[in-house]
């Protein structure tokens, strides 16, 4: 503690160099914190849980999965056949039907394309990640949106980013000219928004609206069913209490004679996401094993350069300190202390600043990977960002600190004289 003032004053000695080093450190910590946030989020999404597992049921052999809607009811229960089978409660299942199209068929742009999930509205707040654990005030506000979606079959809920892209407001009506359900163009009323964050680019509506339109299709098309009718159910989510229950449900579903054409498969949500993320494997590998270590190495070099120059400039001073009685270890601690103050202090500021700016001011980082569009800076990433950069500062300053430790008084003063 007695040396803190000395360390602090040494850092302030060359303000420009310290400021530039701090700025470089802050930029690198900013990047590493963002990268760690994304990696930690993906790790979390793809790590298997032991309890409350989400099971995804999809068509076994085809991507995208397309199953008959007739599968929905029995799949939603976990396909129990015998008295001892696991029966999934109604509240713990959810069906997904993807409906997509454009707001302007004459001028199709990414901005006016809109894909939405047709689902049971009440499942939004019980089955969807994050929406099932909203803070009370946000939950209360969103439950009103869900109620509107249930009451108004034509209701549509959007993420704020999606709403911004299509340049509409809540309360306005839109018509989607379907791309995947040809000739089924649906009109919607935007009844509300998803809570900020993960679903900023999402859209959802009442599945009843799509299914009613499919049911009435033959009446206007010479009695022929819609060509998509055989496969309007894209996936089913089931929540099961533990791995045992998952294995049982999986066996029930995959061995059921009800789902033979097409056959279906069961996997955990984490496994499903992992499979989906395979397409991004190289990108994630690069972020984890190339970008992050490269940033840490550059940080080491930045700190090593600044502290190395500082030690070289102060060899006489370090020799004086030795003359005054500072031991070699104490000199080393002084130099390491400067590096840790500079590297650790600025990385603390940078990581916390990054979290504040990204989470509180920007509402998340827009970085679309797979179906994740927005990432928040997690506390884990902040802690690891600070730890990595402080470690890098420590590593980067070891050589200069050893050099300070080994200053030979007689050599320094023979040169001075």
């Amino acid at each position: 503690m007695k040396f803190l003032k000395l360390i602090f004053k040494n850092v302030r000695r060359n303000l420009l160099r310290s400021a530039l080093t701090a700025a470089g450190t802050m930029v690198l910590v900013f990047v590493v914190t963002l990268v760690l946030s994304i990696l930690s989020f993906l790790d979390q999404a793809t790590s298997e849980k032991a309890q409350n597992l989400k099971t995804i049921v999809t068509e076994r052999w085809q991507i995208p999965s397309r199953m008959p809607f007739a599968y929905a009811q029995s799949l939603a229960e976990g396909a129990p056949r015998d008295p001892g089978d696991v029966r999934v409660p109604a509240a713990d299942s959810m069906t997904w039907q993807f409906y997509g199209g454009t707001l302007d068929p004459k001028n199709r742009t990414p901005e006016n394309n809109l894909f939405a999930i047709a689902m049971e509205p009440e499942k939004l707040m019980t089955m969807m990640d994050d929406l099932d654990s909203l803070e009370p005030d946000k939950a209360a506000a969103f439950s009103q949106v869900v109620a509107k979606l249930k009451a108004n079959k034509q209701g549509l809920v959007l993420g704020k980013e999606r709403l911004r892209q299509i340049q509409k407001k809540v309360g306005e009506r839109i018509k989607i000219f379907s791309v995947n359900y040809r000739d089924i163009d649906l009109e919607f009323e935007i009844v509300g928004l998803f809570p900020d964050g993960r679903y900023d680019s999402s859209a959802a509506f009442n599945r009843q609206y799509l299914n009613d339109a499919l049911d009435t299709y033959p009446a206007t098309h010479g009695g022929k069913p819609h060509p998509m009718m055989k496969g309007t159910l894209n996936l089913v989510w089931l929540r099961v209490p533990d791995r045992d229950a998952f294995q049982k449900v999986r066996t029930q579903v995959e061995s059921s004679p009800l789902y033979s054409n097409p056959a279906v498969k069961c996997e955990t949500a984490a496994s499903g996401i992992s499979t989906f993320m395979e397409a991004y494997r190289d990108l994630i590998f690069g972020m984890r094993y190339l970008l992050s270590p490269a940033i840490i190495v550059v940080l080491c070099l930045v700190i090593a350069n600044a502290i190395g120059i500082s030690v070289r400039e102060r060899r006489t001073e370090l020799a004086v300190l030795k003359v005054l009685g500072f031991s070699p270890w104490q000199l080393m601690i002084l130099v390491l202390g400067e590096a840790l103050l500079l590297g650790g202090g600025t990385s603390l500021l940078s990581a916390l600043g990054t979290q504040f700016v990204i989470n509180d001011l920007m509402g998340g980082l827009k970085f679309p990977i797979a179906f994740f569009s927005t990432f928040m800076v997690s506390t884990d990433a902040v802690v690891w960002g600070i730890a990595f950069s402080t470690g890098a500062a420590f590593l980067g300053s070891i050589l200069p600190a050893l050099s300070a430790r080994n200053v030979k008084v007689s050599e320094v003063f023979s040169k001075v004289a």
Partner: protein
Amino acid sequence: MSSPIVRVIDVHKYFQRGSERVEVLKGLTLDVPQGEFLALMGPSGSGKTTLLNLIAGLDRPSEGEVWVGPECISALSETRLAAWRTRSVGFVFQFYHLIPVLTAYENVELPLLLLPLSAAQRRQQVLTALDLVGLSDRLTHRPGQLSGGQQQRVGIARAIVTDPTLIVADEPTGDLDSRSAQEILALLVELRESLNKTIIMVTHDPRAAARAHRTQHLDKGVLVDAPSMSHDFE
């Protein structure tokens, strides 16, 4: 005469210069009594500073022993030698070597940071040392805001603040004008008299050496004249 506080016994010091071994001190023996003000003179390269460094525990002899008080400092480990220096030796440099980012007060306080003293005790000792050198009114000045003479006074205050047995000074007036040099020498004499410090000073200046009790001349690593007592030190 007092018993020797510093005993240099048959000391040799070699340096390796490329493939050549240079012998800087050649079997040098020297006793310095407690309370003596000794001046070491000699041409450049004669070994004065090397001898001073050995006595101050900044370097080790290649052969021979250096005793200061009861300690054979040539046998101490580097860490113990550092601790010994803090308590036992005050070093005054030709070019002051104050830390430029610290105030006069903080520069003088530096050696005390290594001792188990409270902040109040440190403050008391720093103020006393700065008062002794006449710089009580310059506590918050940085070295750049002080004249050469004042900087050397701060250097002397830093050397005496731990109340060491021995003060070693390497050309303490070498970078000063003659008036400041005389003031610094007068201060050293006064400190010796009032605090009974043993002072060993390397100098090229005969006028500075004249203020010492005794002057020893070195040439090519050996003492060239017999030890002589001068002035009033007996």
